[in-house]
């Protein structure tokens, strides 16, 4: 309809031309990159600092086993008294003191330091000690040291999904999880930001007193839908721009940092692997990242994302519009906001459990119930969801948003013409039953 198109156009242009929109759209990806850069930078800083650890080894058998790593360096005392060794921490500027008793079986090791010892250092030390003990024990039981060396505890699990035709596909729980989480979080975020934007738009029209003029030319329902759709287009614009920026930044970053292979090599080298193994690992690592993503149901993920994005947005935006219609200013929105934000926040919390068990009852029910389904279902889709569940969930979502839009329109059309009164839920209920 022509008038709705006009309203959509105005709502869209008014927001897209707004300075805050432009700044936020440009700045958000840069901020993201900035955050990541800072995190990466900080983590490299940490690994540069070596921690020197003084070892007071009463048993005298660990000198060879405690090998230095990039971050941990061991020095050994001449088996002195523990009290003297403790004094050496401060004198010698050591990070910590490791005390190993004569026999380890009945006594525990102690790691003494002035600050809290970090977990990775602690794990590193205990791993080395355990390895040595295991080795000694096996040897004492008569196992050939050569055999012990050959036992390689490094395990790498490749997950493979078999489809109905019996074809094997490399799948990756990590890839599915990543895509699921990113898409549900995007939906959550956009519903919140843009739902609230609809609400503010309604309140603005009310406080500006412009609403009665518009209502004398168009139906309240047209105004509400025009606003909801206009804001939806703003959301799409922002998302599209972010994707474009993201791709540009990714390419820029790649050419700037050099190819990622060298980073991978460094990682592998630090794991002390044989050079010939590296080559193999390199290939499988590549396969394990790209192949599973390609093997995910890309089309159904994209389709569902768009569907749940729009459906979830329409559902919540109409509720937000109804709130905007029922209040005079933003501070009055609190009491009505809670029941709307609750299911939304709940769905994000549920998404965490769905991550661990995408086929459990929680995952099932919350991905069917319309108020939570947009966020929760997106978490499940990369793992594969039975068609009937998907259809049921989508159908319920469509029915519900038609229902909420109808309800919201009733509240909206009465609310927008009443000023200076605060309303309770009882009033809203009366409005719904009111012929108007």
């Amino acid at each position: 309809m022509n008038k709705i198109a006009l309203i959509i156009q105005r709502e869209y242009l008014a927001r897209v031309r707004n300075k805050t929109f432009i700044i936020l759209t440009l700045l958000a990806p840069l901020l993201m990159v900035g955050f990541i850069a800072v995190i990466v930078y900080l983590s490299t800083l940490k690994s540069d600092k070596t921690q020197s650890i003084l070892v007071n080894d009463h048993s005298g058998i660990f000198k060879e086993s405690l090998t230095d790593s990039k971050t941990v360096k061991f020095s050994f005392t001449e088996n002195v008294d523990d009290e003297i060794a403790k004094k050496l921490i401060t004198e010698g500027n050591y990070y910590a003191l490791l005390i190993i008793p004569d026999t380890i079986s009945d006594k525990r090791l102690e790691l003494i330091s002035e600050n809290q010892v970090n977990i990775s250092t602690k794990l590193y030390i205990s791993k080395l000690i355990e390895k040595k003990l295991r080795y000694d024990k096996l040897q004492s039981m008569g196992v050939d040291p050569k055999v012990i060396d050959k036992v390689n505890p490094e395990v790498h699990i490749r997950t493979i999904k078999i489809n109905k035709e019996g074809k094997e596909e490399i799948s990756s729980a990590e890839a599915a999880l990543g895509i699921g989480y990113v898409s549900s979080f995007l939906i959550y975020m956009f519903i919140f930001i843009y739902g609230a934007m609809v609400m503010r738009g309604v309140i603005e029209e009310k406080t500006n007193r412009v609403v009665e003029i518009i209502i004398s030319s168009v139906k309240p329902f047209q105004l509400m839908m025009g606003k909801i759709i206009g804001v939806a287009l703003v959301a799409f614009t922002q998302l599209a721009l972010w994707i474009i920026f993201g791709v540009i930044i990714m390419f820029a970053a790649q050419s700037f940092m050099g190819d990622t292979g060298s980073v991978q090599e460094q990682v592998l080298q630090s794991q002390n692997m044989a050079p010939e193994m590296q080559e193999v690992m390199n290939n499988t690592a590549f396969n394990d990242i790209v192949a599973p993503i390609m093997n995910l149901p890309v089309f159904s993920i994209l389709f569902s994302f768009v569907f749940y994005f729009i459906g979830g947005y329409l559902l919540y935006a109409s509720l937000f519009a109804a709130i905007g219609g029922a209040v005079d200013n933003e501070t009055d929105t609190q009491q009505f906001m809670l029941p709307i934000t609750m299911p939304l926040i709940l769905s994000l919390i549920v998404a965490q459990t769905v991550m661990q068990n995408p086929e459990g009852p929680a995952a099932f029910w919350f991905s069917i119930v319309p108020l939570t389904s947009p966020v929760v279902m997106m978490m499940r889709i990369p793992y594969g969801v039975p068609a009937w569940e998907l259809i049921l969930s989508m159908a319920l979502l469509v029915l519900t948003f038609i229902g909420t839009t109808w309800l919201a329109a009733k509240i909206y059309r009465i609310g927008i013409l009443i000023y200076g009164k605060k309303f309770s839920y009882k009033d809203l209920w009366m409005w719904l039953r009111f012929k108007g």
Partner: protein
Amino acid sequence: MSFLEIKNISKNFVNHQALNDVSLSVPEGKIFGLLGPNGAGKTTLIRIINHITVPDSGEVWFEGKKLDAEHVLQIGYLPEERGLYKKMKTGEQALYFAQLKGMKRSEAMEKLKYWFQKFEIESWWNKKVEELSKGMQQKVQFIVTILHEPKLLIFDEPFSGFDPINVNILKEEILNLKKNGSTIIFSTHNMASVEELCDNIALINNSKKVLDGDVNDIKQQFKQNVYDLHFKGSFDKFSASVTADYKIESVRQENGNTVCRVKLLNGTTTNQLLSGMLQYGEIVGMNEVIPSINDIFIQVVEGENN
């Protein structure tokens, strides 16, 4: 010829009745004053005419046809609670509202240029509304209301927020619109402007219509046999002669004359009053006191409420 016919309209809200069986007839090409105390139900009635709310019972007929959503395009409505989008540019906003009223963009552009020139506000076109003063915004709002040349115009308190010079400009434009054939419904608490502009009025009180008709007829109906007698001479002697046939309501001095407001009782005629007066002084003039709309308003509303 009645342009707008309101037949037995009733409207209830959750906690109160806004309109109770109200019937009105607005003649074509006239200015119709819709009067009533605050909360009487005027705004509800106007909203029903604008198709914003639907009555519980009763009908509105527009040019001999039952009112429907399409008629809204032929109505220009300036609500009492008015405003504009603050962040939007003035010209763009005026264009938007004109298009919502069904005008083509090019046509709206042309007409807007004419009105912006007429009101000497061309320089505001690219200014945001928030940069304009309240009076300026009201002018823009007025243009937006009349731009699509509607057959029916509804002005709810159109003069609030204007300085006297602009009030005059606006009055002139309203009379021009009437001359060009528009029918105008005019709702206000400013009784002086009602006297000046309105041909017909209706008075709504406590959700009921209590009075309607031609302004002059109503005034005739409400006159109470009261006369102002201007004379030179002794008031004391005159007042001593007052009989039961008339009652002196007030006495004041005006331009060196004594003006005495007298109410005639018991079928006394003005000639009888005059002949009785002659011996006490020199009569300069006499005129009948026609009640103002203001007086009628107060008299009717207070009478109703007691």
